[in-house]
């Protein structure tokens, strides 16, 4: 049998391994470099950057839940100018393929951000974070409206140099297949599934919300089965659309599940907070699982879980 090869072509972007950090969970790159773990990533996804700096939400910004975390950073980021001046050149120097996550509160802001960042050295892709409120549409989230999703992607696509991948990141929710299709129509090369799941908890002593900002989003192993279902549902509806599975991944077996459900690559978020070497270990375990099942390429597994499945999502 030939050897396992984790190299993956994700709609034109080469990922080896097909395991990345999820947006907002890999710091600036400096922290993972300090632990020696930056080089283990197939790509580095930055935290979500906006045009202007955002100081973010009140602390605590993250609390523990059963097998997960509840978080709200409030979009804390240095803004596109400082990001382009400091963090981005450092990432470029380190040579890890960089995917910049960006968001705006109008379509114009998304486009401007893309124009200012996508051409910078080292940027191999732009991940459009659509979990952001639309100032021009009653503060409704972009990701809840297929029409807006298409418009944002098309506007961003127009700003991208050739060779820079365009990904759309969506929140979990009932009409995901339609939204993913809308992203593809707008020009997305791939769709990242998914952002955090809405949650809240309360402090047992103060009886106030545990997070400084009140409500938040849930990530971690607790949501794996739900994230798998998002990927499953979208792949069932749009089997040709490349997907990136994100949510609760912490092992090679979890990554295999994401592939079976229909993803071509995975992102690791919350688990990096516990184990900064997680992505590297997951890649090793993924290779082992492939070997154990006599497979050589992750691509062989994509969507495999759908075949011969008894019917009946409800």
């Amino acid at each position: 049998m030939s050897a396992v090869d984790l190299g993956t072509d994700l709609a034109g972007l080469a990922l080896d391994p097909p395991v990345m950090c999820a947006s907002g969970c890999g710091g600036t790159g400096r922290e993972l470099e300090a632990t020696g773990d930056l080089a283990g990533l197939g790509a580095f996804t930055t935290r979500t950057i906006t045009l202007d700096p955002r100081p973010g939400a009140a602390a605590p910004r993250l609390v523990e839940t059963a097998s997960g975390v509840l978080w709200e950073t409030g979009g804390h980021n240095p803004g596109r100018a400082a990001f382009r001046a400091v963090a981005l050149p450092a990432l470029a120097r380190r040579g890890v393929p960089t995917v910049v996550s960006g968001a705006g509160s109008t379509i114009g802001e998304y486009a401007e951000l893309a124009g200012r960042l996508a051409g910078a050295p080292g940027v191999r892709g732009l991940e459009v974070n659509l979990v952001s409120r639309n100032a021009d549409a009653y503060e409704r989230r972009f990701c809840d409206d297929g029409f807006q999703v298409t418009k944002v992607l098309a506007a961003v696509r127009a700003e991208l140099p050739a060779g820079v991948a365009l990904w759309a990141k969506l929140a979990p929710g009932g009409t995901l297949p339609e939204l993913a299709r809308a992203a593809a129509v707008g020009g997305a090369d791939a769709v990242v599934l998914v952002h955090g799941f809405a949650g809240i908890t309360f402090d047992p002593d103060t009886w106030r919300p545990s997070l400084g900002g009140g409500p938040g989003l849930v990530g971690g192993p607790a949501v794996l089965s739900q994230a798998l279902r998002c990927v499953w549902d979208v792949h069932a509806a749009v089997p040709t659309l490349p997907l990136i599975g994100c949510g609760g991944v912490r092992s090679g077996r979890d990554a295999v599940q994401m592939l079976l459900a229909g993803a071509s690559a995975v992102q690791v978020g919350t688990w990096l907070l516990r184990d900064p070497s997680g992505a590297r270990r997951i890649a090793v375990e993924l290779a082992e699982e492939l070997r154990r099942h006599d497979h050589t390429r992750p691509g062989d597994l994509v969507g495999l879980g759908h075949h011969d499945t008894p019917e009946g999502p409800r």
Partner: protein
Amino acid sequence: MSAAGRVLSVKRVAAFHVVTLVAPGVAERFRPGSLVALSVGGAVSAHLTRRTFPISAVRPTGAHGGTVEVVLDAGADAGAAAEPGVRWLVGSPPGTPVDVLGPVGRPYALPKEPVSCLLVGEEAAAAPLFALAERLRARGCGVHMLLGARSDTHLVGVLEARRAARSVGVVTRDGSVGASGELADELPAVLARTAAEVVYAAGRIPTLHAVAALAEEHGAWSQTALDVPMPCALGLCQACVVPVVGEEGVTRMVRACVEGPVLRGDRVRWADLGRVPKDAR
């Protein structure tokens, strides 16, 4: 940086638990004020964030390899149940595997001159000050200590302080030993008496706030060790941000786990902890 450790022993000290862990590589890089971040519950655990504690002591080698020690408040006597991660740690039999990340964080900054230093410690948080005292004495600094607690049952290190420091003050809220009241009540007199130029403090936030303010009034530098939850201790998650005023008067939200836990007392916006000030960037 993160390594497979294990529990060596769990002992009681006052109302607290001293947990000693075998942890390769931590002792060598330890400096007083730095932290260790532990994962709890082992492979079956539902608790995935780390518990981060100030290191109270290290031993670079020994029968078991390098060890690191933390003093934990399992709150057995408080009405509220102890945090489950802490409960697990103090209940772990020797040999229990624990993933150990450390040392992390900025330690106490040490003065270049042999000035007079006052070390203020509250309950279990006082434990790491003894390693600091040793290093300060090695630099010729005069070391004074002021220890406080709700009651004598929660006072840590008074005997050790008498060995380590030129003078030792003790305050308890219930007056069961030493002066009666809060640490802050005693501080002005002690600052005056010791002519301290630097105050090092570890304790609850209100205590640190008071220490920072009184040190500044007195004209001393203060170095405060912030105890806020640090779920990753790697600088990745931003759970631990505190508002700090930088050189140019600009407030930034800094991560206590990597930019702290020791911060200049005059730079922390104490009244705004748990908030994002409007002028923060």
